[in-house]
């Protein structure tokens, strides 16, 4: 579990969704240059990380890549980087890209986990989100993937859309449960600065959901999925069983080393974190000139590692080691207070957030900081 993870950012989408703040561009003509650059970047890190036990192809829309490009990408990665015997290999897929053939190709290339960006099974919502697929297409994609023998399917959903009715969200969830996917991610809609939705929000064309309703949605989602046997193991992530939790994503939350390749990707190794340029051009140019495409880096101080462990810990079912907070002033009374408020429970030497605790995970660390 403490082996490093590898992330590859595929910064391309056919169109841009109005809520999205991931880095991606729509000019597909840049794909070859990006692949060339990526090949160079791989060489830089060839011996730095040891063997990876997870690979995550994210984006953007990785499934936008054709079979030749995908094949080349995997060759590049596997030729110069080393992997453990049985790595988790995930690709983020968009329903409109899923065909029997594509799925077979992914299989052949070694992908053993697919994370499918469904977002909603309500036609109106999909249009509002300007997704490129319909509800029907999404369900077909699920069926195709499952028919081809994939057991490790993750479905990404989004809730708390402006004006969304609880019943509509529940309908999507209920429908998804029919397929009994190994993993479900439910992201509460966040409207980030710089996105078209943000502008619409400022102009008053869409309404923010509001704390009370966001809270209700969150509790409802968690309760419903847990009743149906899922483990709510991180704020936005649910697994059908312990072993279908995302091995790759967990690394982010535990300060396990990870290497991120491609524009805007982040890496972490021995207290050092760095991140790549958020521009395909810049990324390619840097590598063309033999420079690392790094935008900036930071070395975490002990205190920063501590703060991160705290807030990352409170976001997962694993919680936080008690020892971690013992040095802070008033930790005893604060712990008592948040326990009696039902935000955490104690399990051996760990402080475990409850469902109610999850909703406040961002502010819990502050209580213990000094």
């Amino acid at each position, binding site marked *: 579990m403490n082996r490093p993870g590898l992330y590859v950012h595929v910064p391309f989408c056919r169109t841009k969704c109005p809520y999205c703040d991931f880095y991606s561009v729509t000019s597909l003509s840049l794909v070859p240059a990006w692949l060339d650059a990526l090949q160079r970047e791989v060489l830089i890190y060839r011996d730095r990380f040891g063997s990876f036990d997870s690979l995550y192809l994210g984006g953007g829309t990785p499934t936008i890549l054709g079979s030749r490009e995908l094949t080349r990408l995997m060759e590049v990665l596997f030729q110069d980087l080393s992997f453990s015997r049985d790595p988790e290999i995930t690709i983020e897929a968009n329903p409109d890209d899923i065909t029997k053939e594509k799925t077979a190709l992914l299989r052949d290339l070694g992908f053993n986990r697919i994370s499918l960006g469904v977002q909603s099974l309500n036609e109106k919502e999909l249009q509002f989100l300007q997704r490129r697929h319909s509800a029907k297409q999404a369900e077909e994609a699920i069926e195709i993937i499952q028919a081809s023998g994939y057991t490790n399917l993750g479905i990404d959903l989004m809730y708390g859309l402006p004006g969304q009715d609880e019943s509509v969200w529940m309908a999507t969830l209920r429908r998804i449960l029919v397929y009994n996917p190994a993993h479900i991610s439910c992201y509460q809609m966040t409207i980030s600065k710089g996105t078209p939705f943000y502008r619409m929000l400022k102009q008053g064309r869409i309404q923010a959901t509001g704390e009370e309703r966001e809270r209700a949605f969150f509790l409802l989602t968690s309760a419903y999925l847990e009743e149906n046997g899922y483990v709510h193991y991180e704020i936005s992530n649910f697994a059908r069983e312990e072993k279908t939790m995302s091995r790759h994503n967990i690394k982010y939350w535990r300060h396990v080393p990870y290497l991120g390749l491609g524009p805007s990707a*982040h890496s972490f190794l021995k207290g050092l974190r760095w991140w790549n340029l958020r521009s395909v051009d810049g990324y390619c140019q840097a590598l063309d000139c033999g420079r690392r495409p790094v935008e900036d880096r930071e070395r975490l101080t002990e205190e920063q590692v501590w703060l991160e462990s705290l807030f990352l810990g409170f976001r997962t079912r694993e919680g936080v080691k008690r020892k971690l907070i013992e040095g802070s002033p008033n930790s005893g009374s604060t712990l008592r207070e948040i326990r009696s408020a039902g935000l955490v429970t104690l399990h051996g030497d760990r402080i475990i957030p409850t469902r109610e605790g999850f909703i406040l995970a961002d502010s819990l660390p502050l209580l213990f900081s000094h």
Partner: protein
Amino acid sequence: MRVTPRLITEKQCFQLIRRDPVDLLNQDTTNFGILLTICYVSKIKGIHRQRLNLTDMTQIRNFSIIAHIDHGKSTLADRLIQYTGLVSERDFRNQILDTMDLERERGITIKSQTVTLPYADRSGQEYDLNLIDTPGHVDFSYEVSRSLSSCEGVLLLVDASQGIQAQTLANLYMAMEHDLAIIPVINKIDLPSADVDRVKDEIENELGLDSDQIILCSAKEGTGIEAVFEAIVNRIPPPAGKEDNPLTALIFDAAYDLFRGVIISCRVFDGTLGPGDIIRLMSKGAAYRVEEVGCFCLNKEPRDRLSAGDVGYVIAGIKTVSDTRVGDTITLDGRPAPTALPGFQEAKPVVFSSIYPIASDDYHSLADALEKYKLNDAALTYEKDSSAALGQGFRCGFLGLLHLEIVQQRLEREYDQSFIMTVPSVQYRFTLEDGHCLSVDNPQYYPDPIVIRGSEEPFIQASILIPERYMGAVMKLCLDRRGENSRFTYPSTGRIEIRFDMPLAEVIVDFYDRLKTITQGYGSFDYDFIGYRESDLVKLDILVNGEKVDALSIIVHKDRARDWAVRACDRLKDEIPRHQFKIAIQGAIGGKIISRSTVSPFRKDVTAKCYGGDITRKRKLLEKQKKGKKRMKIVGSVMIPQKAFVAVLKSEDE
């Protein structure tokens, strides 16, 4: 012969030169050449004043201008300064001696200010007139009393339309105690509402001063200024004292300069001192070598020596602030005076409050700032204090509410301190079962109620002057504040003066602001102590989630406790940010809860995603919030922002 360099203006140079040169030569041979050179140089360089040598002590006058607030002291000082040409038209501004930002913002004098005026009378006789402009507000009367100890006389100003007011009397008595020559001056005779005859009567009958002696002037229009000068020169005696006696110089004020150390303002009574002399500050016995002496001529003007009769400054590289004490005597190390000058009575504070640095690391910086500040405001008293909620701090005593406010703002502005100030308190008296008497100005030392046999609080006589139409509202305010025994007078048509006996405690928080608001700015308020009276006092505590916030405790009259408690709980509720859990805020007397409010918990505070890049971003956000938290005070597990402590003090309609 005494050789004191003195300043004259260019204008005066020419005046002198226009006179018969022989006469000039007779007057002071050595000066003639210098004079011409000066005139020449100052013409070329545009220098307005240069040094001259003055001959003897009969040509010095030391005086203060004293009056009730706003009667025109600083404006009269302006005219006197301008008359002597100390400042060019270009550099002049109104109330030029009010140099502090706060003084200019508020239009009042806060600190006494000395200026040495070079004056030549009609006969050409030259003088050094050391003028001290004093504040009129009662809260700064300590400034006045110290200034008076440097003087032989005063100009007692009375506003021609207001007539004699509280501080006119108080300041006059102070001048009499110092045995000073008193020159009554009626100012603002230009005002349409001026009633010179009435005011003359008042001066004669109420002050017992001879009305023939009264000078009439308008500081604003500059009329009567020459008469003022003549009176200063003719009616105020020159300083006594001998230059060849051992040095005694009274420190009546000081300031701390980052580069030069302590700058002492002093009045030399006997002897003389100059650069190179080793002085001794008598109370601590510390010795220093004098670097520079001089006088205040709007700026500090170095001189060769300060001698008996002079008022000026001394710089001696004093970096140890505690060596200097206002009221101390300076003498010469080689030839010390046998006894120190009497010095000053300690200021007697009437309002008390504790201050705590916002970041506890800043305690030493605050201590340092207070020490330096106190040099420049001898009326402030302070001692160490500590609170469970706010950490280490200081208990400060002030001469009044305005004084408190000024200290607060000066510490913030001039010394860059940020601190929390607790609710002001008066000094209460308790008689205990065992017969002991206890004075308590800090709620922390409130005695166990079981052993209290009797309690008393200070009362004032409040006099409030308002247009008649506000009478109802003002009466209500005063009755709400436990005012009793009301009396009325009608000083002029349409105006009413209401007098009330009131507990001082009721006016020190938010009374004047309220009065101003309900009278739309037309109300004026004055008060005098009338002594202690029996009172039913309790200690009110504020609890946050069951824990006492000691810095918010107050001693208060039983009937007023609930109001205060409700208000404090409400204010705190608005200022304490939501937490992850419910926060109960309670007001309690002993174990009994008399008010409560609740801060409901957050409902949701979590971001959906946190992968690679989000971690750094999120951590940075947390780091920022953490910094904010540093500025909060923690009680139990509740974070209380500093502004919550401030809010408890705020007036009702802010």
